[in-house]
């Protein structure tokens, strides 16, 4: 059974992923003058966070 804090941990992974890759996208977008890169970064960040959550929480705990 997942512990009570798991839900909040997942939320913080999602926020972290969006912030990090959205931020990188925004920076690269500023540099290359392609504004859409912020959005691309945020979506990529959510995808990577989801991958991370799957690796973290779907394995049977040791």
């Amino acid at each position, binding site marked *: 059974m997942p*512990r*009570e*804090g798991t839900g*909040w*941990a997942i*939320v*913080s*992974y999602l*926020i*972290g*992923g969006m*912030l*990090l*890759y959205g931020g990188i996208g925004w920076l690269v977008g500023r540099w290359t003058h392609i504004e859409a890169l912020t959005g691309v970064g945020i979506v990529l*960040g959510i995808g*990577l*966070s989801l*991958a*991370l959550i799957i*690796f*973290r929480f779907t*394995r049977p*705990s*040791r």
Partner: protein
Amino acid sequence: MSNLLVLTTASGCHFQSHPSCGYPAPTIEDFFFKPIFSIGGFQFTKPILLMLLSAAIVLAVFWMAFRKPKLVPRGIQNVGELGILAVRDQILRPQLGSKGDRYLPFLVSLFFFIWLMNLWELIPVAQFPATSKFAFPVGLTLVVWVTYMFIGMKNQGPIGYFKNMAVPPGAPWWILPLLSPIELLSNIIVRPFTLSIRLMANMLSGHLLLLVFSIASWYLFSATIGLLFAAVSFIVFLLVFVLEVLITLLQAFIFTTLTAFYISDALEPAH
């Protein structure tokens, strides 16, 4: 009592009583108080007073309860034991198991301190949740953050802690450079950030809701159709009040539960 509430009730401004009498909606100004006194640049305000009171009450209650502990508890010792056992069985044990009992004093004081600071929102005369001032949740979160970082580095070694944090179990190696930064960011920055924001935002919005409906009840109270709306507003006020009783407890519970969760994460790598 909030500044605005005093102002509204003092002016006797009611619905349709005067052409220029509008509904005095609560603003962020209601969260700033005139200092009670100031020493140099330091201003001693009501939230600080409430915070000190909370700390004093928690200290006094537990000191009185366990000053002369007896095997068969009587009187206030019953209350103290009830509180400690509640934190142990509902918050600590589910997260840390019985090996985490050494953190019980920390979690018990954290829980009751936060709960009391929240509870001032509902107590007449005080009527302000100290935790809705961002500095208090931030201070508490800093304590929690330092605690779990220290426990992590002590138990897994300074390098081992960050390595275990950065490497999610079962992830293929080629994706690690993409995932590790998320993990580090979420553990080191997002966790304490969300912990403090959650407490502050919940108490701030609760206080605003109470203000909106209490001021509305007063403002609409007049010999017009407004009386009907005043009654409805007062009923909603009572309902929100009951909800807030629950929320003060719930927010203290969530804060402490997450603290226990972070400590257990620091004790053992990757669950």
